[in-house]
């Protein structure tokens, strides 16, 4: 059926790239100015009755012609083609030339890389039993884009570039196997978060204590950086305006909030054990949509519940809250609330974090991502949609509120990240 897609103008390059990759270079589209969100009916009318900012012709002329003008030969060109990726970079070069070459090809995060020579990649590959040509997975920057495939060797190349040591490689392979990009294209500038559990933490010297989230540990830093580099390169790029549309960008993306859980100091069972793994298993858990952070000190006797409620109400309701507690704070929460398990604390937070229904449904991200599901009957969202404007409804289901213990007990600080758990993957499978 003839169709035309209406887009906002900032997505022009993305639209054309996606149409080409889907074998439809002749796809018809028209553009209105960005943004649509927040505009009055009169302003939107002016968009529609106005000029397409990309094609410089009336928007509705583009629409009508898009449905009626026959395709010419150039639009119907057969677009069958294979796109190979060579194993080696085309030409050898000096260290300086190749550093620049990698930057020019958008293969780095603009910090210097370790050049992936054959010897370095071979050393990385020696730390897994998996063959270099084994396919690890597929990845893409967003759900509507094509997924690219990658092998163990390709993951190793990116691990070398990040400066990772070969003994970290099973963790990096597990991250790649999760198939979740740390370089998502979303305009919301989401980063990822990585939580490592089990014996591997000690075997490779990861930090779960003082300074764990910061630049204070080689394994944390380079595993997190490797996750970012492998995501951008193995999925086919993360180029601003083409394969990355994060409006503001995100500093978390450099090393992707990569830490180990402080299992030994936690009053509860480790994160991976909650998900069915044994304590003796080594795993990596991937969280997506990491953007916002709330923090405070202590769990005060008088108003601790008020403090937590206000922090949760300050989060965007679409992203799931992840409590990251220093062990001192974790023990205080256990003491104040009598939480014997993390699940009990999650249920308490679920009851605590309630918002007026009218306010909840008015959030733009709720409109985009939650409201559509509610209107077509998904429970309990459909019931919440029927709530009176002033009725308090929960912001998150209890199973969406997660807890991890990280920190070195220099003080009882704690944070709530907006970061949604995607997957927990075995590291042992990639040794």
């Amino acid at each position, binding site marked *: *059926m*003839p*169709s*035309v*897609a*209406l887009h*906002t103008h900032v*997505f022009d390059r993305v639209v054309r790239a996606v149409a080409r*990759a*889907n*074998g*439809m270079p002749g796809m018809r589209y028209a553009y*209105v100015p960005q943004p*649509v*969100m*927040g*505009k009055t*009916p009169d302003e*939107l*009318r002016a968009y*529609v009755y106005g000029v397409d900012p990309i094609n410089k012709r009336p928007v509705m002329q583009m*629409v*009508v012609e898009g*449905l*009626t003008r*026959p*395709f010419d030969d150039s*639009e119907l060109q057969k*677009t*069958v*083609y*294979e796109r190979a*990726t*060579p194993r*080696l*970079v085309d030409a*050898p070069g*000096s*260290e300086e030339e190749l550093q620049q070459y990698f930057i020019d090809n958008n293969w780095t995060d603009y910090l210097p890389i370790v*050049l*992936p*020579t*054959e010897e370095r*990649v071979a050393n990385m590959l020696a730390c897994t039993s998996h063959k270099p040509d084994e396919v690890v997975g597929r990845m893409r920057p*967003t*759900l509507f884009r094509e997924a*690219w*495939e*990658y092998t163990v*060797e*390709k993951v190793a*190349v990116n691990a070398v570039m990040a400066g990772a040591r070969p003994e970290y490689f099973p963790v990096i392979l597990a991250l790649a196997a999760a198939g979740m990009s740390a370089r998502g294209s979303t*305009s919301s500038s989401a980063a990822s978060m990585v939580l490592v559990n089990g014996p591997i933490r000690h075997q490779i010297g990861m930090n779960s204590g003082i300074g764990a989230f910061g630049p204070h540990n080689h394994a944390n830093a380079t595993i997190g950086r490797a996750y970012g580099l492998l995501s951008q390169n*193995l999925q086919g790029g993360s180029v601003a305006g083409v394969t990355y549309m994060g409006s503001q960008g995100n500093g978390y993306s450099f090393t992707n909030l990569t830490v180990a859980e402080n299992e030994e100091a936690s009053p509860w069972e480790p994160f991976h054990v909650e998900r069915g793994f044994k304590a003796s298993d080594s795993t990596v858990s991937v969280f997506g949509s990491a953007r916002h952070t709330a923090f405070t000190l202590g769990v005060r006797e008088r108003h601790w519940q008020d403090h937590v409620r206000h922090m949760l109400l300050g989060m965007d309701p679409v992203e799931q809250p992840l409590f990251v507690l220093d062990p001192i704070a974790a023990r205080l929460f256990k003491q104040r609330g009598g939480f014997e398990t993390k699940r009990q604390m999650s249920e308490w937070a679920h009851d605590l974090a309630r918002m007026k229904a009218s306010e909840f449904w008015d959030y733009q991200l709720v*409109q*985009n*991502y939650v*409201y*559509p599901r509610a209107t*077509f009957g998904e429970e309990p969202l459909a019931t919440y949609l029927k709530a009176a404007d002033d009725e308090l409804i929960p912001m998150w289901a209890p199973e969406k509120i997660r807890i991890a213990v990280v920190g070195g007990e220099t003080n009882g600080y704690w944070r709530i990240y907006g970061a949604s758990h995607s997957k927990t993957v075995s590291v042992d499978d990639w040794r």
Partner: protein
Amino acid sequence: MTGAAIERLTVLNPMGFPPSVSPKPMAPRLDSLDDKTIFLVDCRFDDSELLLKQVQGWFDEHMPNVRTEMVRLSGVYHHDDPELWQHIKANGQAAILGVGH
């Protein structure tokens, strides 16, 4: 005096493997929109419905012999909606989708 020779390094390409591209046939365009039904598909992203209402208003004003019908995806914009596509195919002759991004 000459300096030491600069070492030439051979390095591996870090990019993954893209899928091959296969052409998809494009639907023939219509001779005219007169007396046709066009579905306006609300992708439910960032107030797209409000923009499409203005598109509908334009047709009412400028091409009153075109019938327009607003429909919305049954879920979030990145989920496919085969039932809706079937409905549009059975009941209309063209579609305008918005707002894509």
